[in-house]
């Protein structure tokens, strides 16, 4: 099952190790400009988002100015330049999910549920995405509340 890593946190003890792993992933890409997006994706795959040192590493590796790397990175909606909230869930608000009651899911957890655009699982609407990017389909408000408390407990454990 697809799942993204816990978002990188510079203050945790494993930070240097994770950044080194990201550097290896970046430098596994061919050292040329066409590797810009693959290298950014490789870094995000390891770190869960793109902290500035990772962006700088990509820039140095593919020999593109940092400013230009940011210009490109900000154009892709799936590249995360800020650390994602490890407790935030997303509720799909595409047309099919909207019809199937996405609003009720958003209302069920106003503090932790955010809106997101179409997740391409329209036939299983309404759809929510957990903090690790796992998708859940045909979700009811009760089920959504249960899942939210389960992840909160998981995060505290």
């Amino acid at each position, binding site marked *: *099952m697809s799942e993204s890593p816990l978002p990188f946190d510079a203050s945790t003890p494993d930070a240097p190790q994770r950044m080194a792993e990201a550097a290896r992933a970046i430098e596994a890409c061919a050292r040329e400009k*066409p590797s810009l*997006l693959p290298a950014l*994706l490789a870094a995000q795959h390891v770190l869960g988002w793109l902290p500035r040192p990772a962006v700088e590493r990509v820039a140095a590796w593919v020999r593109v100015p940092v400013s230009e790397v940011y210009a*490109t990175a900000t154009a892709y909606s799936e590249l995360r330049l800020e650390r994602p909230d490890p407790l935030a869930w997303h509720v799909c608000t595409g*047309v099919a999910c909207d019809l199937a009651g996405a609003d009720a899911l958003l209302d069920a957890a106003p503090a932790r549920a955010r809106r997101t655009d179409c997740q391409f699982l329209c*036939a*299983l609407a309404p759809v929510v995405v957990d903090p690790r990017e796992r*998708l859940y389909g045909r979700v009811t408000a009760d089920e959504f509340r249960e899942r939210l408390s389960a992840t909160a407990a998981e995060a505290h454990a």
Partner: protein
Amino acid sequence: MSAAVTPALARLRARYGRPPETRVLVHRGTCGDAVDAARVLEAVRAALGTRGVPLVETACDGACWAAPSATVVRPGHRHRFARLDRAPVDALVSCLDGACDDAYAGSGARGLLARVGFLDGSLADALAQGAYRALAHAVTLKPAEVADAVASAGLTGRGGAHFATAQKWRLAAANAGPRVLVVNAEEGEPGVFKDRHVLEGDPHRLIEGVLVAAHAIGAARAVIYVNGQARNARRALDAAVAQAREAGLLDGSALGGTGAEVEVRSGAGGYVCGEESVILNSIEGERPVPRLKPPYATDRGLFERPTVINNAETLCAVTTVFDDPPPPTKLVPLSGAVPRPGLYEVPVDGATSWAGVLAMAGANPQRVRALLLGGPSGRFVLPEEFDAPLEMRGLGAGGVVVLPQEADIPRITSALAAYNARESCGECTPCREGTPRLVALLEDVPGNRARIDALIEVMTEASLCQLGGLAGKPVASALALFPRDFEAAR
């Protein structure tokens, strides 16, 4: 009837052998896993016990509504068991024993979807179920003859523009090489989930189409650009490319022809990334914005080389052009207020209408207010049109959301306009400035009607690409078809 099996294909099949046909398939993939198909897998495993029947984890077969589901396959018999989250799995066992009528509820015609949801992930199984038959035949033909076959099948681009595929190929082939084939599997249009089903469920279908096209174009390199969120599709495609390489399908040693090197790239979101020149910029490491045309990609595309950019579904359809007759089908991802939402393969044969499609999905047309066809670049279809035969050109990328009688059309229209505003890349003024202004003007349609019409005209005529060019289309359609819904300011 499809092309005969060539001696080279027969040798390849013999080399790989034939997996047993009798099997139990548990449909996982993105759809199944979103509704806990893993638990169904364990229940089925327990029910099968020590019977020794192969239990195969496979992708969604297009019947997303049925997920989590499993299908029993034995010679001459296929039976899908739907919604196993709320039905016992015991019936599968009696079906295996033969105590069962054939009850496979299909998703329309099965041409491109023939193997989707029925494969065990091995090349052997794909070959046994017919993969690479079109390629084996194509490499016995001259490149121009392949383009002729595509032309006589009437194949047009399935990404939505419906440009004649053979004509695009010929334009590129007329230019000096090296030539490149780029596959648009970005599929970022909200409501569209067709290519990811095919890639998850039958990635060899696309690879075969790529190799047929590469032969026709004379391209030694192909780049498949896959939607970044479609991670299961990417994983399945990577595995299949590795299998094809190992089998000698990419270098031409297995079936003949010169072959093509196939590279897979992932996108990272953005509706505009489905625009073909944006994909070229993305692959080159440039900002993902559209290019000014001309030059057209067939003259100067990826790295300035003559480039054919085909939608993934188009290339999948290329594998059927040697069938007699080729099935004129369109993949239609259908969601919304219907009992059986999912991916349908719809015959566009002059006989099938929306009424027929809705019947397949179990919908009662009386309860349908309209269809939204093509999402944020699309239009609304009223019930008056439901009985008219479908035309390929009118289908766009094929995405349909069925809107119930109580659907709030102004709300949906505003949401589509807001989506386009968020997704505008900002490269050209009509789209960058026009899309947010359209959102604002929709707050008071009666007061702003003339300005809305004028703005849509400017965006349609002057935008650099079709994100801006079509952003006004659903708005114009809604205002024309549902004028009373917009009478009051919101």
